[in-house]
């Protein structure tokens, strides 16, 4: 069974995303703050992490992603963003944002599933 961790401070987004992924047969665990998010990733070792870029503080998502990478957790990260354009951050797959892909909010179930599948497929190929 494939396990996906979703970390976002908006309970509605957590719920909606969980439902979408569960309907496609994935197992889902959630956390609504960075410290719980860190904990569930360490304990449950998910196959994929979905991480919101802005939680309590701007950059929280970035910091958490960097923390995972520093600790050699190589689980693919899919990042949720909502205001990348408004704050002038044009996300590219740059070094300072160590994530594998982005999904712009609001989330379309189709796009989310496609991106999740693509990332999992990439991991599969590497093996």
């Amino acid at each position: 069974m494939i396990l996906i961790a979703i970390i976002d401070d908006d309970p509605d987004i957590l719920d909606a995303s969980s439902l979408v992924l569960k309907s496609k047969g994935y197992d889902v665990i959630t956390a609504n703050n960075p410290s719980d998010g860190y904990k569930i990733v360490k304990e449950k070792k998910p196959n994929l992490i979905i991480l919101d870029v802005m939680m309590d503080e701007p950059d929280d998502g970035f910091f958490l992603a960097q923390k995972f990478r520093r600790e050699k957790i190589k689980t693919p990260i899919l990042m949720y963003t909502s205001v990348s354009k408004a704050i002038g951050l044009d996300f590219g797959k740059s070094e300072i944002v160590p994530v594998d892909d982005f999904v712009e909010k609001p989330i379309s179930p189709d796009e989310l599933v496609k991106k999740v599948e693509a990332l999992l497929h990439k991991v599969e190929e590497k093996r």
Partner: protein
Amino acid sequence: MNEKKINILIVDDENGLRLGAQRLLQDEGYEVETAENGETGINLGTSKNFDVAVIDLKMPDVDGLDVLKEIKSKYPNTICFIATAFASYDTAIQSTRLGAFGYIPKPFTPEELIYQIELGVKQRELIIESDRLKKEREENLLEIAYEKSRLNTIIKSISDGVLVINRVGEVVYFNYAALKFLNICELKIGDAAILKLPEKILNLITKIFAAETILLKTFTTQIELLPNNELVIEAACTPVPHPDGNIAGVVIVISNITQFKQIEQIKSQFVSMVAHELKTPLAAVQGFLNIMLDDTIPLDKEKEKDYLARSVIRLNGLKDLVNDLLDISKIELKAKQREIEEIHIQDIIHNTIQLLELELKKKNISIDTTIEQDLPIIKADQNEITRMITNLLSNAIKYNKENGKIFIDALTKKNYVSIRIKDTGIGMKPEETSELFNEFYRAKNEKTRGISGTGLGLTIVKRIVDSYHGKVEVESEYNNGTTFIINLPINNN
């Protein structure tokens, strides 16, 4: 000169000649005075500015040349003739050297004398006119010099920087504000602009000089001289046309736009914050709707209803946010056009409590109100003060515990009416208290989870209080409750 009669002095020891000439010239309309010897001649000739003097060369007491010398040294513009029967080349040269205008050989006919006098009068008129012109010119020069120094002073004291470059690229003029804004320590007239000015300005100057015809417009550029918007200038470069049709140079006016830039930055930060806050609930609602529309995701009726209910909650929050934003912009507008009236704080407090009764009952919170008797009336906008009390009281309810208490006091404190709203709620940590009045700040911890808000309520309170030159204070103890104190000035005018 026409109205005034022309004065003529005749110095001659020969009575007949002297009197004859006098009569002759008086008949011609001249005013004539005479001296019968050299000394009288000197006295008379230096006592007033004669137009013309006719001086006999040989006189028993004083030589005619001496008389000429004395008169000329006092009145250099008196036209002097030397009259003599002993004309010689030497005396002619000598008298000319001493400033004589002409030489009248004796004996002379009346016509000869009149002719000579007329020449002299013409000369006198020319000299006086040229003197007048000379004086006028000197006065003009003085005026120009004064004007120039005045202009200098004006340019030196304007707050914008002014710098002028000639057509070979040398600095020909600058004021001190220009140095300050360009962050240059040393600049001399004649320095090459290319060595001293920022590249962006040089590019504009090059563009102006390179144009085939003079571009009669101003080119501007903005330069961040110190990072993080600490010093930002705007340079406006305008060509100066030369009468020959070419460009004489470029005038650069430099203004400090740092403050403007900083405000712009704050504004754009605020806009992105607002965008984020608006987009968050929209994203949640749209997420739910997308799921409901997706046929591949199974959803039972109950779950669907739950999602719809949650969507409504998010949209309500969005509506509150929009209203709060509108209120903020209203406060800013209203500072200019508010309706000031006499306000009884106690009435507003009681009305607000009534308005929030439902919320109070839900959590079973009791309110204890203490209002000083004869609390001064303050002058303010009723809606703003109501909004302020409402925001504080609804926070006191929202962040209170079940069965908690709220204490409201209002009393006079020196020149202020002091309103205190104290709750027995969850309180705040010091680091949370310090951020409280920032836009969109909401204390987030395990205790505040599930409490909704826009993050603008206290921002609005602070802006209202500030606009009345009041003070807002907050005291809070984590887990024990928070107290807000509003001090509004009692304004009797």
